[in-house]
C-alpha cells in the first residue's frame, strides 16, 4: 500500500484547501450570489438577506440585469468583488455550469464558495476540488442546503423554522433530515452554533472529517450533531479524526439508511452500499469506537443532545 487511505479512508490531501477548513462568517461577511437572476437566485438572495446575511451583490451574464430586489447585479465575479469587497459566494447555477462559476469566483479572489446545486458531474467536482485546494479556499458542496450561523448569516437554503442561535453544531450530508432534526432541536429549546451541510454527493469540497478541528475550536459549539447516511466513508473518517484528536465535545450521530437495500443509490449519489462497504453498521461501529453516541431515531438524537448539554428538560419525543 502506498497510501494510508485505503486502510483508514484518511488521506493527507483530505483537508479542504491547503490551509485546512476554516469558517469566519458573520453578519458582516460580504456575500455575492452567482446566478442571481435565475429562478433560485431571485428566490433565495432576498431570503438569505432576510436571515441577516450581508448580500452585497449578484452576478449574472444577463446584460439587462441591473439589480434584483435592490441587490446590485454585476456582469462577472471580478467586477462584483472589486465593487463590493465580497469574500464569499453562493453559486446558484445549473449543475454543468457550477465548475466554470467556481473557477470564476476563485479567480476573483473569493475564498468561500457554497454550491447548493444538485447533480454536479463527479469529474467536475474533482476539478473544482483541485482548484479550490490550489487557491487555498473553502468549498461547501455540491448538493448541499448550505451553511448557517443562526442569528448571523445563512449561505444557502436552510429553512428559518429550523434555525435558532444556540450551542449545537450540526454537520449534515442530507438537507431534509437536518431540517427535521434542526426543527426538533429548536422545539426542544436547543439552537445551533453553526450548521454546515457538506452535501450528499461522493465528490465534494468539504468532508465531515475536515470539520473536526474547526468544531473543536469553535467557541460557541458545545456539542456536535452529526447527521450522516449510508455510503462512502465520511462518517468513518470523521470518527477516526475525532478519536485521534482531543475533541473534547460530545458527539451525537444519526445515520440514515440502516434498512436500505444494498447496491441501490438512495436518492443521493453517494448513498449506496456495496457488500460491507459504507454500511450503517460500519459507520456505527467506527463512531461508537470514537466515543460518539449513535442514535437510531430522530427523537432519540434530540434527547441525547439535550442530555449531552445537561438540559434534562428536553421534552421526550
Amino acid at each position: 500500500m502506498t497510501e494510508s487511505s485505503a486502510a483508514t479512508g484518511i488521506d493527507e490531501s483530505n483537508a479542504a484547501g491547503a490551509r485546512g477548513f476554516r469558517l469566519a462568517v458573520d453578519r458582516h461577511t460580504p456575500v455575492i450570489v452567482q446566478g442571481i437572476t435565475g429562478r433560485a437566485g431571485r428566490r433565495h438572495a432576498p431570503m438569505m438577506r432576510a436571515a441577516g446575511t450581508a448580500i452585497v451583490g449578484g452576478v449574472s451574464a444577463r446584460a439587462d440585469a441591473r439589480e434584483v430586489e435592490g441587490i446590485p447585479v454585476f456582469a462577472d465575479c471580478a467586477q462584483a468583488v472589486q465593487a463590493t469587497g465580497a469574500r464569499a459566494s453562493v453559486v446558484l447555477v445549473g449543475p454543468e455550469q457550477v465548475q466554470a462559476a467556481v473557477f470564476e469566483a476563485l479567480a476573483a479572489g473569493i475564498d468561500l464558495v457554497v454550491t447548493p446545486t444538485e447533480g454536479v458531474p463527479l469529474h467536475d467536482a474533482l476539478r473544482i476540488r483541485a482548484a479550490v485546494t490550489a487557491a487555498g479556499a473553502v468549498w461547501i458542496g455540491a448538493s448541499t442546503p448550505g451553511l448557517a450561523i443562526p442569528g448571523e448569516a445563512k449561505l444557502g437554503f436552510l429553512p428559518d423554522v429550523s434555525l435558532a442561535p444556540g450551542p449545537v453544531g450540526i454537520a449534515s450530508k442530507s438537507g431534509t433530515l437536518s431540517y427535521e432534526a434542526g426543527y426538533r432541536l429548536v422545539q426542544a429549546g436547543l439552537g445551533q452554533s453553526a450548521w454546515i451541510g457538506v452535501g450528499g454527493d461522493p465528490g465534494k469540497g468539504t468532508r465531515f472529517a475536515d470539520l473536526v478541528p474547526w468544531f473543536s475550536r469553535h467557541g460557541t459549539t458545545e456539542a456536535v450533531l452529526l447527521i450522516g447516511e449510508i455510503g462512502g466513508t465520511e462518517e468513518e473518517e470523521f470518527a477516526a479524526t475525532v478519536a485521534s484528536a482531543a475533541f473534547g465535545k460530545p458527539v451525537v450521530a444519526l445515520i440514515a439508511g440502516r434498512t436500505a437495500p444494498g447496491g441501490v443509490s438512495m436518492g443521493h449519489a453517494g448513498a449506496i452500499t456495496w457488500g460491507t462497504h459504507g454500511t450503517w453498521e460500519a459507520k456505527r461501529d467506527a463512531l461508537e469506537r470514537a466515543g460518539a453516541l449513535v442514535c437510531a431515531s430522530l427523537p432519540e438524537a434530540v434527547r441525547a443532545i439535550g442530555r449531552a448539554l445537561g438540559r434534562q428538560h428536553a421534552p421526550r419525543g
Partner: protein
Amino acid sequence: MFLLEHDAKQLLARHGVPAPGGAWVGPRGEGLDACAADLSGPQVLKAQVQGGGRGRAGGIRKVASPTDLAAAIESIAGPRGRLGDGRPIAGFRVESVVEGAQEAYLSLAVDPAAARIRVMVSARGGVDIEQVAAEWLVQELAPLDPSAVARAVRTAVARLPGLGHGPHAAAMREALAAAGDTLAAAFVDLEAQLIEINPLFVFPDGGWLAGDAKVVTDDSALGRQGAQRALLERAGARYEDVDRKWRHGCDYVVVDPDGEIGLLTTGAGLSMMLIDELRARGLKPYNFLDVRTGGLRGDPRRLVDVLQWMTAGSRLRVLLVNIFAGITDLGEFASLLDQALEAVPALRVPVVARLVGPGLDAAREQLAARGIEVETDLDRAVARVRERLGEPCA
C-alpha cells in the same frame, strides 16, 4: 450507473478497449439461435447481473460447443430467471473462450476522500481482488488527467512484485502499460467512477483483452454522455432506477414489494430515516422516494407518475405524505397532490399527510376537502398510519 458487463464492454469498445468477441442473448435464450450459427468451439456463458461475485453465485459456465448453450442457460437461470443468490438475470453474454493468457488486474476509480484517481494493479487477476494479498496489489493516486493516470499505471506496473525478468514479465509489463493508456483515456472520456478489468488477459506477445469489465458511470454526467444516454434509451429496463430518475427527475426505489405503507416524501436523508423508523416500529414501508417538491413547478405529472407506480404494491394499505418544505409552497403542493390523487383512482388507500412549511393553512383547507387531515408532527402522523392499518397506537 453500474453497467452490466456486456454494456460495459460495448461502451469501452468505442474507446479502443479490446474484449473477446461476444454476443447478447436474452434471459430465456432469446436470440441464441441467430448468434450460435456464427460460433464454433468452446464458449463461456456469462449471466448479466448487477454487482460482483457472479462466478461464485454460479453465473458463469464454460461449454465445449455452442450446441450446449441452451442447456447451460436453463441450468443457470432456473425456472425463476435468477442467479443462485436471487439476483435477477437481465440476459447473457456468450463469449469465445480465451486460451493461453496470463490473468492480471487493473482498476481505475475515483477516490472521493483523496479527490483523485486511485490506480490499482496486480499481476494476479482472475479472482476477487479482496482475496488478493496486499503485497501483490500496487496502488497509486493521480489527478484527474488521462496522461497523469496513465503515468500512474506505469509507475505501479514498474513496482509490481515477483514478476522477474523473463518473457512473461516483459509481456505483462507491456500489456498493463498499454491497457493503462487506453483505460485512462476511456475513464476521463466516459466520466467514469470506476473501471475495473479483472481478469485482464495478457498474451505472450504483450497484447491484452478485457476478460471482464466492471464499469460504474456518473448519472450526473448523463446530460453530456450521449452513448450512455443512448444505452439508457435502448435498454432502460436493465437500469430501472437510473432510467426513472433520468426521465422523471425523482428517486423511487421499491424497498419491500410486500410493503403496506406507500411513501410520498421529499429529501433523500429524511426519506431513508423515515423508512428506518417505520421498520423499527414493526411497520412495513413499500418504497423509498425523493420526489423533489422543488422541481414540480406547478405540474402534477410527477406526483401522478409516482402514485401510478405505487399501484403495483398489492399489499399497499395507506399512503403517508411527508413534506418538510424549506421554501416549497404547501398550498400549491396540496393542490397538485389533490389533482394527482384524482388522476389515480386505482390507488384506493387512505392518506395521512404530514406537512411543515409555508402555506400550511391553505394546504390544510385544500386537503380537508378530500377528507385528509394534516399533521405537523411526524411522530403523530406515524401514529395515524398505525390507526389506519388497524393497529393499536404505540
